[in-house]
C-alpha cells in the first residue's frame, strides 16, 4: 500500500495538512507517536490572531484567520470558537503611538480595529487596572479550544479517506517514505514533516529550538475578561533574544475560566514548572489586571513552542529533497497558522497556485547563513 502523502505528527498543523490534502483527493496517512494534539498543540492558548510583525507573518496569519472564519460553521460546539476579539493593551503614551501605528497598518490591509482611550479600555474590560493609556481592539480575532479543533480536522481528513496511526513513532524519513520505531515502513510518494519541535530530529539542519512556556487556568469567573488581552510588549518577548521573558496575555474561555500566559524560555532542561518565571509571569499580569490575584487557579502547565531564528515557520519543500515537505516551527502561532499552513502545503505538493507567496516560509532559510 503506497500512500500519496504521509504526514508526521497529528498536532494541529499536521491535522490541517491532512484535512487540506485529503480534501484535495490525495491518499493520506497521518502518523502520530502519542495522541492527537498531545504535543505543543494541547499546551497552547488557542488564540487566533492576525500579527503585524512582518509582511510574511501578517500574510500567513491573515490568510489563516479567514480560513478559520470559513470553518467556523462546521466546527463542533465543543471547539468553543468565539469571536471575542483581541485588545492590545498600552500602558503609556509611548505605547499608544504603537497602537496608532498598528491601527494604521491593519486599516491599510482591510482589518477593522478601534483605538481605545483610557476610558474606553476600562469600559471594555473593567478588571484592567486604572491608569492604562488605552489599547487597540481587533474584533476579528478569535479563540478556539484547539484540541477539539484538531480532532475535527483529523475527522474531516478521515472522511476523505485519510488514515491515522496513533502510537507509532517515525524514526527516519527515507526515499520511499518513513520508517517507524517498530521497524515497519510506510511507503508514500511525499512526506510532510509536521513534527513540531521534533521536526529537526527527522530533518537534520532545520533550525528549530524548544521554547518553553507556562500557562495557568482558573476556575469559572464568567465575564472576568471579555477579550483576549495582550500587552504591546508581547512581541518584544516573542522576538526577543533574551533567554527568559514574560508578557501579559489573558484569554477568557467560554467556560468562564481565565487562561493566563505567557512566558518564554530557551534551553529549559525539563517540562517541570519553573516557579521563578511563573511568578514573573503572574506578577506581570497583576500589573495589568490586579484582580487576577484573587482568582482560584486549578492547573498550571508547561509546553514547548517550536521556535525558528526569524520567527517564521518552515512551510514548503525541504531543499535538495523532491519529496519531503516541512510544516513546522510555528512558535506561538501554530493554532492560528495551522489552516493556512495546511492549504499552502497542499498547494505546494499539488502544484496549485497558493493564496499567498510561499517563499518567505521556505525551509531553505534554515540552511542559509544567517
Amino acid at each position, binding site marked *: 500500500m503506497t500512500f500519496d502523502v504521509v504526514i508526521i505528527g497529528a498536532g494541529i498543523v499536521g491535522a490541517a495538512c491532512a484535512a487540506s490534502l485529503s480534501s484535495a483527493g490525495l491518499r493520506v496517512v497521518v502518523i502520530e507517536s502519542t495522541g492527537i494534539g498531545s504535543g505543543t498543540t494541547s499546551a497552547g492558548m488557542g488564540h487566533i490572531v492576525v500579527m503585524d510583525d512582518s509582511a510574511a507573518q501578517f500574510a500567513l496569519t491573515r490568510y489563516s484567520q479567514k480560513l478559520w472564519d470559513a470553518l467556523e460553521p462546521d466546527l463542533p460546539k465543543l471547539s468553543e470558537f468565539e469571536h471575542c476579539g483581541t485588545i492590545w493593551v498600552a500602558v503609556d503614551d509611548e505605547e499608544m503611538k504603537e497602537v496608532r501605528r498598528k491601527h494604521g497598518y491593519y486599516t491599510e490591509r482591510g482589518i477593522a480595529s478601534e483605538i481605545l482611550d483610557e476610558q474606553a479600555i476600562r469600559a471594555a474590560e473593567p478588571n484592567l487596572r486604572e491608569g492604562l493609556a488605552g489599547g487597540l481592539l481587533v474584533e476579528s480575532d478569535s479563540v478556539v479550544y484547539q484540541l477539539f479543533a484538531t480532532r475535527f480536522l483529523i475527522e474531516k481528513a478521515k472522511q476523505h479517506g485519510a488514515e491515522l496511526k496513533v502510537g507509532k513513532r517515525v524514526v527516519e524519513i527515507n526515499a520511499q517514505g518513513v520508517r517507524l520505531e517498530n521497524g515497519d515502513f510506510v511507503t508514500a510518494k511525499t512526506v510532510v514533516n509536521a513534527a513540531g519541535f521534533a521536526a529537526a530530529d527527522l530533518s537534520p539542519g532545520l533550525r528549530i529550538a524548544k521554547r518553553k512556556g507556562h500557562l495557568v487556568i482558573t476556575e469559572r469567573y464568567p465575564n472576568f475578561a471579555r477579550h483576549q488581552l495582550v500587552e504591546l510588549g508581547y512581541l518584544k518577548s516573542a522576538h526577543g533574544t533574551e533567554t527568559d521573558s514574560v508578557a501579559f496575555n489573558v484569554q477568557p474561555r467560554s467556560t468562564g475560566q481565565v487562561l493566563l500566559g505567557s512566558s518564554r524560555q530557551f534551553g529549559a532542561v525539563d517540562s517541570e*514548572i519553573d516557579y521563578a518565571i511563573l511568578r514573573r509571569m503572574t506578577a506581570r499580569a497583576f500589573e495589568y489586571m490586579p484582580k487576577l490575584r484573587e482568582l482560584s487557579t486549578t492547573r498550571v502547565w508547561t509546553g514547548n513552542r517550536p521556535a525558528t531564528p526569524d520567527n517564521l515557520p518552515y512551510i514548503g519543500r525541504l531543499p535538495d529533497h523532491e519529496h519531503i515537505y516541512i510544516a513546522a516551527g510555528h512558535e506561538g502561532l501554530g493554532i492560528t497558522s495551522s489552516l493556512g499552513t495546511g492549504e499552502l502545503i497542499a498547494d505546494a505538493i499539488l502544484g496549485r497556485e497558493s493564496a499567498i507567496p510561499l517563499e518567505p516560509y521556505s525551509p531553505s532559510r534554515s540552511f542559509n547563513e544567517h
Partner: protein
Amino acid sequence: MNKGISDILIVGGGPAGMAAAVAASVTSGSIVTVVDDNPLLGGQIWKASLGKIKSPEARRLIESISNGAVRIINNAQVFGSSRENSLLAETPGGAIEFEYKKLIIATGARERFLPFPGWTLPNVFGAGGLQALVKGGLSVENKRVVVAGTGALLLAVAEFLKAHGATVIAIVEQAPASKLNRFALSLWRSPAKLAQAAVLRSKLTGIRYLTNCWVTSAAGDDRLRSVTITRHGKDRKIECDLLACGFHLVPNTELAAVLGCRIDDGFVTVDEFQKTSRDNIYCAGEPSGIGGVAAALIEGKIAGLAATDRTSKARSFLRDREKIRRFGESLNITFALRDELKRIAGETTIVCRCENVEFGRLTEFDNFRDAKLQTRCGMGPCQGRICGAATEFLFGWKPGSVRPPIFPVKMENL
C-alpha cells in the same frame, strides 16, 4: 512569602501525623512542624465536633504535641513545591514556604463515591461526609437517614448519627452476609475487637443491617426524598431525608506523587521504616495503605522515629504493624466492591460532578487522559479526586498524572 525551616516537617495532623510528631519530638531535639489544612488537628477520623475532639486517644496525642515542642500550623493547604526540600502552602493570610530536612507525608484518605442516578441531589452525602458535616454543626435531629455503601465505617456512622438524634432507617451494605460472617468468625482472635463489635451492635439495635444490598437510585425534587435499594433481585423504595453513602477510602497520594515518590497500585511505596523512594521523605497512614487509625498511629510512630535516626527503636514496632496490616487486609477482602456496582450508573448519570460529564459520554474511552481531554472529566476544582476514584472502579482506568497545584490556589499564592 514567609519561610519556616524544620528538621521534620509533617503534612497532615490526623492520627498518623500526630503520632509521627510525638515520636519525632520526644527527646530528639529536632524542630518538628505539623501542617494541616483544617482549622483543628484530628484529621478526618478524629475530626473535632464543634471545636472539641471527642476521642480520648486523640486528646492525649494532641496534648502531647501541644506542649510547645511541636510547631502546629492549621489552615495551611500544601499545594506544591518550588524547589528541593521545600513545600508551598496556602493559608488565609497568603502563601508560606516550608523548608525541611525530612518530610513525613500523612495526608490521609478521602471517601470513594460511586455514581448512581440521583446521587447529585442535595442531601446525598458521603458516609464519612455526613458525619463530618454533623461534627461541623449540621443538625440531623429527627431526620430519617439511610446509611449505605460498604465497610465498618457505616456502622460507626450509623451509631454517630443515631447519637445525634437521627432516625437511621437502615444500613445498606453491599457485601454479602457470607463474607461478613466469615470475617466476624475471624474476630475471635482479637478479643478487644470482639468487644468493640459487641458494643457497637448493641448501640445499633433497632437499625436494620441489610447485607447484599445497595442503592440503585435516589429521587427527589430540590432535594433527596427517597432512595431505591436492591437486594436479592428485589427493589424497594425507602423514603428518607438524608442518604449517607460511601465506598471505602481512597488514599491522598497527590503530594507524594508530585514530589516524585514512587506510587504502586495507587499507594505510596514505603520500606519497613515508612521511607518512600525519596531519601528524605516518609509516608505514614492511609496513603501507604488503608489501615485505619491503628495502622496510622503505629506507622506514624515508626516514621517519626526513623526520620530522627532511631530506626532500632522503630524496629520494635514492626511486628505490631504487621498484625494491624493483616487485619486491614482482611477488612478489605470482606468489603470488596461487587461488580454490580459498576452497572448502577445510567447513561445520563453524572460521573464528573465538577464538569457535569455523564456516564454515557465516558464509555467510549479506554483511559482517563483521553476522557479528560475530550470531555473535561477531571478538569474541575476537585482535580479528578472524586471522578478519578469512581472511573478507576467503573472502567479500570489508572488515574492520570498529578500536576501542581494539587489543590486550587489563589493566583497570587502560586
